[in-house]
Structure formats: structure tokens, C-alpha cells
């Protein structure tokens, strides 16, 4: 049972992110179908009109199936967690509000799927029914959101939630349909794109309206933005939305200047792919946001601006390791002891989620050890970034072997990550593998080796085809996971300061992934930009690791 509860926290965030992406695509593709494909189809050549209808219908069906599965699993997970912890019959648990709203959501999605099944283009009544079922999905989700649990400003927050989610559907949810529609004949593709930009502009407006409500209801002050996990995640989401807006603006310009030729849509496709990747990252942050208490509810123990500037003021990297058997550094240890006593004296009771676990106690040597690890990792990533920049010039042949630097990083991780275990500690390798953390670390080292070897082989032209995309996809996946990772439910300053160092790492990873993807996929004028951009992002990641501190 405890193992299940340990899984609960992890699985709920991941499922929530998947559910959010699937539902946004489902609602967005319904809107695309009803508001764009059908009315515009009348103005397009019959072949293109049929293909546009098929694209929208297929995306609704796929989005519906994915959304159904994720929503069902999320509901099942919550039900299972309750069943594992309460002595109540299953019938009593089924009466919980969130189960009822999950049921309503599932029912509405089943109706949507049923309405999407007939192959012929939808008539007026079927379009109205599709819109109604989509609205029901939106309402079920809104009434199952955190807004419903608030005591103050509930109506405003419910409206904000609905507007925000509808806006995401209008803007981001239709992108899979749009990118598929760009394969229509160029004149039709341009008309679809131009019409879509109107939907997207409306979506941006709805998102901004919803965000205003969230600001007043959930955040409320600038101090809450950097002082709490909720605030800093919301700020990260805002930065990504600005990136999306920039991409959207470039799309708009392209759409209205695009030559009606196959080459004209290629640049647009790259921008839309980047929009989709950043959109997924935004939704991962949104999933994370729904799992932390709003900033307004955590008025105490926030990280102050002075603490942030103190922590992030660059200091000389720790390039010598503390001795494995070393004792704590007295001054730092005294400071940590004082902080610990202060936390113990705090009156506000702590709360946690099943499976959340507790931060392990650390001493000064642990911190010095960890900072040393980060700083050397930073140096290696910097090396990779600079080597990749040199490689981009095409003048230094040796630089194309930059993936091999990652082998050094893998070896470093393997040796240093678990000092109590083999090869540094007394615990043997096999024995240490009983600890899941150790398994994760060793596996991560092996994966870095696999990544380095595959990318190196690509650089040497030994491997071709889709293996080229391992690097950008890994960067994107890493960035998204970094955005959706653990958050402390209470204001734990140490966790928040680490969070603040993670968020820019994640942003840089997402941008680097998009840039490398674009470099690989072209067109040449965009590939040239991508070739310089992703090494610059790696250099940024390296610098952030170099200034990383834990005390």
C-alpha cells in the first residue's frame, strides 16, 4: 500500500499533464472542425475540403481517445489512493465530487467521440451537438478544478479557469490540425492558416482574461511571484507564453506574406512545431501549478528578494572536492543548525501529499560535495557548448567530436552521485542497487553514454535517419519533466531556492530542443539560426550550473 501511495504523487502529476495536453487538443480540434474546417471547406476545392474535414475528424477522435484514457486513469488513481487510506466502502468513495465530475467529463467525451464517428461532414445539428459536448467537457473540468474548492472569489476563479482553458484550446489545441492542414495545396493551406490566426488571437485574449483572474485570486503580489513555488511557476509559464506569442506573431506575418508554393509553408511548419513543443511545456507547468497551493495561501516563510540575490550572486566554483571522510565545515554547519532550529520552532503545521517524502537532513559536507558535482558538470556542459559553437563555424574539424565530452559527464555521475555506494563508498554495487535512487543515478549515467555515442555517430555520419532526433527530443523531454517536477506543498525556502535555479535550466532546455530540431529539419535560413542558438543555450545551462549553490 505504501508503494502505491509513493506512486500517487508522481503518477498524478504526469497523468495530469498528459490529460491537459490531450484535452486541449480534443477541444481545440473540435473548435477547428466546427468553426474553421466546415465553413472554410465550402470555399475550398473539393479535394482540399474533404482532406481538411478528415484531418479535423481524425484529430478529434485521437484526442478524444487519449483524453478519455488519461482522465479515466487520473480518476482511478485518486479513487485508489482514497481506498488505500480510508476505511470506507467503494460505494461511499464513488460519491466524492471529483469522481462525479470525472464521470461527467468522461460521458461528455464519449458523446464527442460518438458525434465524430460518422465520416460525412457534420451538418448544422451535429456541429451544434459537437460544440455543446465540448462545452460540457469544459464545464466538468472547470467544476473539478481548484477554483471550486475556494471559499472566496469562487465565481471569478471558476470563470477564469473556464476562460483560460478555452483560450488554450482555441490557440494551442488546434495546432495539430493546423500543421496537418498545411499539407493541403498551398493556396488552401494559406487560407486555413489565415483563418486559424483569428481563432488563435481570440484564444490569446481568453488566456489573458483568465490570467487576470488568477493573478487576483491566486497570487496577489509581486513578492508572491518569486517567493513561492506557485508564483515562480506562473512566471515561467508567462515567459513561455511570451515566446509563444513571438512565434505566433512570426506565423501571422508569414501567413500574410506567404508565397502560395510548397516552399512557402515549410518555414511556417517549423514555427508551428516549435509552438507545439513550447505549448506542451506550458501545459506541463499548468499541470504542476494545479498541484501546489496558490501563492496567496502561503503568506509566511516566503523566499525574500535579498535571499535570492544572495544565493544567486556568482561565487567562485567549488573545484576541489571535500574529502569523502571529511567532517562538516564548522561555520556552514552552524548556519544550517540555526536554520533547522528556526524551522522546528515555526508554528505553522506542515502538510504533505501521500508519497511526498521528506527532504533528507544535510550537513555542510553534503552541500560542498553536491556543489562540487554541479560545478564540474557545469564546466563539462560549457565545454560541450563551446565545442558545438566551434563546430557550427565548420572550421574546426575536431569540434564535431563534442558528444564525447558527455562520456566524461557520465563517468563523473557514475562515480560521484552516490558517495556511500560503489565505487567510492563501502556499499557494493549489487547491494546498492536495492535503493531506487541509486538505480536511477546509474541508469541516468548509462543513458548519457547511450546519448553521447548515438549523437557522436550522427556527427560522424555513421548513423542516419530518425536517430538524429534523439538529441532535440531528449532536451525537450528533459525540460518538460523539469518543469513538472516536485514542489514542496509548504513554503520550504531551500526547496524554493532550488526551484528558482531549475526553472531557467528548463526554459533553456526547451529552447535548445526546439533550436536543434529546427536545425535538423530546415529550411536552411532557419537551420542557420538554430545551429547557433542551441549551443548558446547549452552554454547558459553550463553557466547556471557553475553558479549553483545550496547554501
Amino acid at each position, binding site marked *: 500500500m505504501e508503494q502505491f501511495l509513493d506512486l*500517487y*504523487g*508522481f503518477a498524478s*502529476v*504526469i497523468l495530469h499533464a498528459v490529460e491537459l495536453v490531450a484535452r486541449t487538443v480534443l477541444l481545440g480540434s473540435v473548435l477547428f472542425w466546427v468553426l474553421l474546417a466546415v465553413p472554410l471547406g465550402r470555399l475550398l476545392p473539393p479535394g482540399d475540403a474533404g482532406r481538411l474535414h478528415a484531418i479535423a475528424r481524425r484529430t478529434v477522435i485521437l484526442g478524444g481517445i487519449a483524453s478519455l484514457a488519461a482522465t479515466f486513469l487520473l480518476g482511478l488513481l*485518486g479513487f485508489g489512493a*482514497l481506498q488505500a487510506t*480510508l476505511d470506507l466502502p467503494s460505494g461511499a*468513495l464513488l460519491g*466524492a*465530487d*471529483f469522481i462525479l465530475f470525472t464521470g461527467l467529463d468522461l460521458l461528455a467525451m464519449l458523446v464527442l467521440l460518438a458525434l465524430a464517428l460518422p465520416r460525412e461532414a457534420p451538418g448544422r445539428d451535429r456541429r451544434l451537438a459537437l460544440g455543446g459536448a465540448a462545452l460540457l467537457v469544459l464545464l466538468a473540468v472547470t467544476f*473539478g478544478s*481548484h*477554483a*471550486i*474548492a*475556494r*471559499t472566496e472569489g469562487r465565481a471569478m476563479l471558476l470563470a477564469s479557469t473556464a476562460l483560460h482553458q478555452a483560450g488554450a484550446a482555441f490557440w494551442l489545441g488546434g495546432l495539430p490540425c493546423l500543421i496537418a492542414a498545411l499539407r493541403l495545396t498551398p493556396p488552401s493551406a494559406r487560407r486555413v492558416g489565415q483563418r486559424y490566426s483569428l481563432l488563435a488571437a481570440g484564444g490569446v485574449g481568453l488566456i489573458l482574461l483568465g490570467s487576470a483572474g488568477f493573478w487576483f485570486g491566486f497570487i496577489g503580489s509581486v513578492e508572491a511571484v518569486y517567493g513561492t513555488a506557485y508564483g515562480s511557476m506562473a512566471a515561467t509559464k508567462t515567459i513561455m507564453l511570451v515566446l509563444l506569442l513571438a512565434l505566433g506573431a512570426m506565423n501571422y506575418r508569414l501567413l500574410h506574406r506567404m508565397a502560395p508554393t510548397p516552399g512557402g509553408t515549410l518555414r511556417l511548419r517549423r514555427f508551428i512545431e516549435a509552438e507545439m513543443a513550447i505549448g506542451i511545456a506550458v501545459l506541463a507547468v499548468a499541470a504542476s501549478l494545479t*498541484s*501546489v*497551493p*496558490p501563492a496567496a495561501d502561503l503568506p509566511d516563510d516566503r523566499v525574500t528578494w535579498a535571499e535570492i540575490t544572495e544565493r544567486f550572486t556568482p561565487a567562485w566554483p567549488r573545484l576541489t572536492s571535500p574529502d569523502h571522510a571529511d567532517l562538516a565545515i564548522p561555520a556552514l554547519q552552524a548556519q544550517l543548525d540555526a536554520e533547522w532550529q528556526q524551522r522546528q*520552532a515555526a*508554528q*505553522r*503545521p*506542515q*502538510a504533505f*501529499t501521500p508519497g*511526498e*517524502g521528506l527532504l533528507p*537532513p544535510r550537513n555542510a559536507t553534503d552541500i560542498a*560535495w*553536491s556543489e562540487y*558535482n*554541479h560545478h564540474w558538470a557545469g564546466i563539462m556542459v560549457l565545454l560541450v557548448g563551446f565545442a558545438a559553437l566551434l563546430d557550427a563555424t565548420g572550421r574546426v574539424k575536431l569540434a564535431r567530436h563534442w558528444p564525447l565530452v*558527455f562520456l566524461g*559527464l557520465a563517468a563523473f*555521475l557514475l562515480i560521484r*552521485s*552516490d*558517495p556511500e555506494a560503489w565505487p567510492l563508498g563501502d556499499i557494493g554495487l549489487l547491494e546498492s542497487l536495492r*535503493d531506487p*535512487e541509486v538505480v536511477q543515478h546509474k541508469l*541516468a549515467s548509462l543513458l*548519457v553514454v547511450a*546519448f553521447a555515442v548515438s549523437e557522436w555517430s550522427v556527427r560522424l555520419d555513421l548513423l542516419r535517419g530518425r536517430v538524429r532526433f*534523439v538529441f532535440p527530443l*531528449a*532536451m525537450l*523531454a*528533459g525540460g518538460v519533466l*523539469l518543469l513538472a*517536477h*516536485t*514542489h514542496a506543498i509548504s513554503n520550504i525556502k531551500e526547496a524554493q531556492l532550488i526551484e528558482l535555479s*531549475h526553472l531557467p*535550466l528548463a526554459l533553456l532546455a526547451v529552447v535548445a530542443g526546439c533550436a536543434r530540431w529546427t536545425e535538423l529539419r530546415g529550411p536552411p535560413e532557419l537551420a542557420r539560426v538554430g545551429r547557433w542558438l542551441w549551443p548558446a543555450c547549452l552554454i547558459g545551462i553550463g553557466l547556471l550550473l557553475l553558479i*549553483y549553490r545550496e547554501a
Partner: protein
Amino acid sequence: MSQLASPAHPILLLALLLALPVCGAGPAAAHAIVVTSEPTAGATLAAAPAQVSIRFNSRLDHERSRLLLIGADNAQTALAIAAEGDPVVLAAPLPPGLAPGAWRLRWQVLAIDGHITRGDIPFTLKAP
């Protein structure tokens, strides 16, 4: 103690950036947190109160929440949660005749939005 104690640790995360992630995200937190409580965490009381109450930041599903009283010997007693009343307060009468010593209120709440949260409120009863 592992130096990469959490999946959120930057070096491991760096590895995740560079390799297909298998470790995934860390555990999630949830919404409902304690705003105030009677007794407060860490309180030392001269006598046991007639009832305990915990105020949260979210509306609760009282029927599907739980409150346990745990003694120094780890013996657990389920407290009867009052079903009616303030939607953000978990309240329950304490059994009479609690012995002096260390006690702990272990709560688990289901917020209306479906999030489950747990926590402990330790308090001490002084000997007369």
C-alpha cells in the same frame, strides 16, 4: 546519504536533459494546507481540550477525510469528524481522560477538487 537525493536534483536533471528520461518527475504536492489549528503544532497544554479543529485553505469533503489521534506508544484512535459546519474546518471531539505526554493529530483531507493531503500536528499534555 545520496548526493542526488531527489529526482529533481539538478545533476540528475541534467542527465535527463541529455538522455531519454526514465526517472520521471518527482512526487506531486496538493492544495489543501493548514491555515490554523487548535491546538497549534508543538503546543504544550495544561489540559486536553474538549475538541480539536484544523482550518484549511480549501473546502473539504468531510465524509472522505480522516483524523487520527496518535499516542506516544503509536496507538491510533480514529476521531469522529463533525460532518456539518464550516466547509474548511475539520473538527472532532477528543476522547475524555487523555494521559499527559506527547500526542499527535494525524489528518488526511480530500479537498473538493479531488486533491488528497496529509499532515501531523504534534502537541503535549502537561502532567497536572
